[in-house]
């Protein structure tokens, strides 16, 4: 049964992840490492917010970037995040590219964009379903523009938030002091 569902996911390349479907999310994430073109999960904010709350002793540096295919400065800075992901692949750094495109644009825009640009960092679509409360929940300082990026390291209680366009060097300067030698 699970196997059948899994193959249907791969065929369509789309899955809506709800609270009750947590295991499937992880299934999907696992698959994104295995297959060459990554599968982009669609997450409700409730599911997505777990990424903002790593376990207390987790010393991985999470670089979570909010972007959208329609946002020019976001698209311009994506290579910086890709380079970060590649440069720090062997260290405790995890780059998440969180698209806030509308759910309706998933097949038309987001998936083709990820495939065309061969994005290697983990991409997900966060579907807030029109509920803008997520902006304050990510960070009360967020005015609601993108690109926006949050850098989280639970073990050092680091929770930085930036509403700006980044260069690779700027990102490196933020994460380097956090990486455990």
């Amino acid at each position, binding site marked *: 049964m699970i196997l059948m569902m899994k193959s249907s996911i791969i065929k369509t390349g789309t899955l809506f992840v709800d609270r009750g479907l947590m295991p499937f999310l992880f299934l999907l994430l696992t698959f994104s490492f295995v297959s060459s073109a990554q599968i982009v999960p669609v997450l409700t904010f409730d599911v997505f917010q777990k990424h903002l709350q790593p376990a207390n002793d987790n010393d991985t540096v999470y670089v979570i970037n909010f972007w959208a295919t329609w946002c020019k400065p976001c698209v311009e800075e994506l290579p910086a995040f890709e380079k970060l992901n590649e440069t720090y692949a062997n260290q405790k750094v995890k780059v998440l590219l969180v698209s806030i495109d509308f759910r309706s644009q998933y097949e038309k825009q987001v998936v083709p964009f990820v495939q065309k640009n061969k994005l290697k960092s983990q991409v997900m679509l966060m579907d807030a379903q029109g509920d*803008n409360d997520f902006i304050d929940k990510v960070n*009360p300082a967020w*005015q609601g523009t993108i690109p926006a990026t949050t850098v989280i390291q639970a073990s050092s209680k680091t929770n930085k938030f930036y*509403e700006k366009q980044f260069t690779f060097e700027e990102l490196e300067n933020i994460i380097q002091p956090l990486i455990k030698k």
Partner: protein
Amino acid sequence: MRLIKSTLSFLTVIVVALFSFGFINHARTPLSFGEGARVRQPGYNVGDYAADFKLKNIDDKMVSLADYTEAIGFVVVFTCNHCPYAKLYEDRLVALDKVSKKKGYPVIAINPNDAASHPEDSFDNMKKRAKDKGFTFPYLVDETQEVAQAFGAAKTPHVYLLQKEEGKLKVVYIGAIDDDTENTKKDKVKYVENAIDAVEKGEKPNPDFTKAVGCTIKWKS
């Protein structure tokens, strides 16, 4: 071969399931998450008084809020031509103006973007867009970006509802036009219209502050 493949897949499922359970059960402390604390915004906040301005309209005439002697208040909206989110609201701004103007709160649209970096937002293109979309309200250009800075506008679209109070302009609502940027909900919450209804009754709008996704104002470098 097929058997090996499906066995491998099955093992993957097991491993993933175990991993996910482990992950879920880990202790977690929220990192400044979900407090919903109201942070003081740059520029005007609800309750502040806004300064009047004088900006050029698409008919080449200068417009000030003081010109509207009959108005009870204003729906000041920072918007532009190029932003996909602003575009989604163009028709709804016209519809809003129709309702709000009757109540004494005309829409005043202001484009604060630097046209040098975003030619789609040029004055000529503003004229074209207003004509194409049948704007029933002034569409002003904030060339020096001083008005957007004074208001603390961060994005397009970004609404400030003002109410005249003893000759001053009190900010009574800041935020989004409604809760449905994509315009797909039947039962959308029309924040600005609701706020006008509230102040008409002498009540405080609830909510008086909302946040929505928008395009960054393109500041001059």
